[in-house]
């Protein structure tokens, strides 16, 4: 029985890994063929667009350099081969290897995303705990705040925060700085809408937990409201929100596209937007691949975290990305 279980778990892990590899392969394939659908000559794009007065010789040289003169299938296989060895190719526009570029931009985005996730968690927790068990008005205020927060577009929030905190009051820098001050506004910008989503889920499960029999049992033991909240209900409330962290990461990456541009922060989002604007295909593929990779990683971590927080064997996982 135990043996069977172990084998089953190993099998699950294997399936999981195979699934991750499959998704990465599919992402690479989709992206490769999608960008080949872009109208226009990639060689021209490499040389700076149709306006750049390129000579046929230069085009031919570029085609040869980037292997664009080979049949599409061969190019695709080459691309896969390179990806398998971690080589993401050369940026058309940035004159450097995509791998190191993307890796160098990953750090900033990860710091931003993880900080935002933490802050969003804190805000959501505070709001949920404040507004739960205080009667209908508090619940409605809490719920209303969450819905509004979830509806706030990053770009508008960022702009409004800059106007208020940088331009009117001048207390926080509107751009990234060497110290942590520059992180405040971007993190708040990303955290507030996310907190709206997390808070909705958290507060609902908190409400459900507070109405459950085990909380009644705890109260019947003489547990205080705070004890009920911290010892019992919060953990249950956190479960679905933990499960959402994979999704949250994805949404933060989307947000980073906007936030990094507005706050002039280095990072994957800004790199991606620049690359899309100038149609720098290898960089787009590189960013997409690394985001997919990190995203898959995050969903696995999320699953693990969910399992740690909820060791019940019946846990059905989160379904995020899986």
């Amino acid at each position, binding site marked *: 029985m135990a043996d069977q279980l172990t084998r089953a778990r190993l099998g699950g892990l294997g399936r999981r890994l195979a699934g991750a590899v499959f998704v990465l392969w599919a992402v690479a394939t989709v992206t490769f063929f999608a960008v080949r659908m872009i109208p226009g000559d990639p060689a021209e794009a490499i040389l700076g667009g149709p306006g750049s007065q390129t000579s046929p010789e230069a085009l031919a040289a570029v085609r040869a350099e980037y292997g664009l003169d080979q049949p599409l299938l061969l190019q695709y296989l080459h691309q896969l081969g390179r990806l398998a060895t971690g080589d993401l190719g050369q940026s058309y526009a940035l004159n450097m290897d995509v791998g190191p570029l993307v890796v160098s931009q990953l750090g900033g985005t990860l710091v931003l995303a993880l900080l935002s996730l933490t802050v969003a968690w804190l805000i959501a927790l505070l709001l949920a705990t404040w507004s739960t068990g205080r009667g209908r008005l508090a619940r409605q205020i809490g719920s209303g705040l969450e819905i509004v927060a979830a509806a706030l577009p990053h770009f508008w929030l960022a702009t409004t925060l800059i106007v208020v905190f940088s331009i009117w009051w001048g207390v926080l820098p509107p751009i990234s700085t060497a110290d942590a001050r520059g992180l405040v506004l971007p993190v708040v910008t990303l955290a507030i809408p996310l907190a709206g989503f997390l808070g909705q889920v958290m507060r609902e499960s908190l409400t459900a937990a507070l109405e459950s029999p085990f909380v009644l049992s705890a109260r019947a033991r003489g*547990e205080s409201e705070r004890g009920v909240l911290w010892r019992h209900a919060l953990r249950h409330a956190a479960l679905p929100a933990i499960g959402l962290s994979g999704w949250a990461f994805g949404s933060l990456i989307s947000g980073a596209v906007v936030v990094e541009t507005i706050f002039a922060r280095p990072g994957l989002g800004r790199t991606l937007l620049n690359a899309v604007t100038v149609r720098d295909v290898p960089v787009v593929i590189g960013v997409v691949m690394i985001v997919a990779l990190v995203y898959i990683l995050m969903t696995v971590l999320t699953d693990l975290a969910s399992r740690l927080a909820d060791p019940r064997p019946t846990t059905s996982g989160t379904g995020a990305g899986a």
Partner: protein
Amino acid sequence: MTPADQLTTGRPRPEVALTVQNLRVGFGAPSAEDAVRGVSFEVRAGECLAIVGESGSGKSVTARSILGLAGAGARVRADELTLAGESVLGLTEPAWRRRRGRDVGLVLQDALASLDPLRPIHREIGDSLRLHTRLDATERSRRVLEVLDAVGLPDPHLYAGRRSGELSGGQRQRALIAAALVLDPPLLVADEPTTALDVTVQAQVLTLLQRVRSEGTAIVLISHDLAVVSRIADRIVVMHDGRIVETGTTAEVLGNGRHSETRRMLAAVPVDKPRGARLAPATETRPAGPALVADRPAVPADPRNRATPAVPLVAPAAPPATPGAGLALEAVGLSKTFRGPHGTIHQAVDNVSFRLQRGSTLGIVGESGSGKTTTARLALALTAADAGEVRLLNEPWSTLPERDRRARRPLMGAVYQDVLASFDPRLNVREILQQAVTGPASAGRARGRRSSAARRGEAARVGSLLDEVGLASGLLERRPADLSGGQRQRVGIARALASRPQVLICDEPVSALDVSVQAQVLDLLDELQRELSLSLLFISHDLGVIQHVSDEVAVMHDGRIVETGTAAEVFTAPAHPYTRALLAAVPRLI
């Protein structure tokens, strides 16, 4: 049960554990009627007082008010509310908290949900010690193991670290009781402590509670089930509509209940009532006239309408209609396995054979996980058996391809436990019945072109179905979600009857119902069987119900049928040890 240590610590007991005088509890607007309206009782040390009533009678609210946990919006007033010799009226929340757990413990119904599923049980139990004593961690854990041992949890060292989900039903109910007893409170409030449990486990828990009482702890036991409380209660309080309608010793109440509500409840208990005996007043089974659309009309004041419990409509020995006229349903060597989540294999049904005679009832009884529901699904040919065959009216059934079986499906109806879920939520009663009346036949016809005569015929049939199950036609436009539990089950039965089936598969059709509603439904099924010569496959975990409805009984255990025979044989002279254990555990009135 292990003869463990004393459950109690020998803490001195107050003579009177609880005094309640004129308790009133209201919710919502001050003008709204109170849920509890002037309840008074007293519980002494070492006494078990049972509060009995159907859902909505106010018994749970009363119980929770004793712990000051009636809820945030509740208005609790009383002339006196004394707990362990101290008045708790108007206590502040912190003061309440100091008493809860120390002066009074609470045991709830569903231990799986009543213990935090994310925390090991030793933490849950230790919480009381942490909150009310100054014991250090080692002392606390010693006491936790002590009390777990005392409640009869095997190997406390091993189980203390588990979560409620990793324990069996009996184990976790013991753990829950241990959590309430760890501080040895003079009073234990047990709110339906055995309701969701299998009958054998229920018996063990009742025995445990008996021990608790015998050691001097007062118990307030809340239950809807008179049979359960009769085992351990010293005195019984019957509640109805927020009032106490009857109070007395257990023997008095059970033997000589005076109030109509008490009598109704007593009459409705199916156990030991002969086959064919009415459980509910005839007017409630099929209320005549449109006025009677509710489950329980106001208790009639007219003494002629008073329930006459245990009076058989026909001679109890009278054999069911036309037995031996052939087989309605026959199962031969049914087996079914399921694959578990981690590749484990679970044998749900193992070589099960049975025969259902025409016009009779075969009761299948078993505890949870015994394979009875899978058996029902196999009989309905909703799942394909791994081995074996089901034959319907001596013709192939389970071996037919679904396409061919469809034409024969009208011969077999089904009544479900969760009847609400079995209705398409988009349809109202009329649409549900209409569809059932039209049945698969309409699929062949041109859509929407049925003649008006045919439509009139359908409408008439829907009306007569409603009559058959005793529902007023005023309910036709309602959706099942807006009906009461009993009404829903009647709609479910009407739907099952719509195709004029010969065989009815009833899977726990009354388990979700209050005992008096259960009585009405059982009576109804009984009458219908007689009138329509139905053959019933009746599946239930409740031996009382099975005993009451069945001509023949099959006892299932771990996927196998361990014993079959006529109801009389099985219930009076059980051959298999498991059957004997089951029967011994059945709670009976006195």
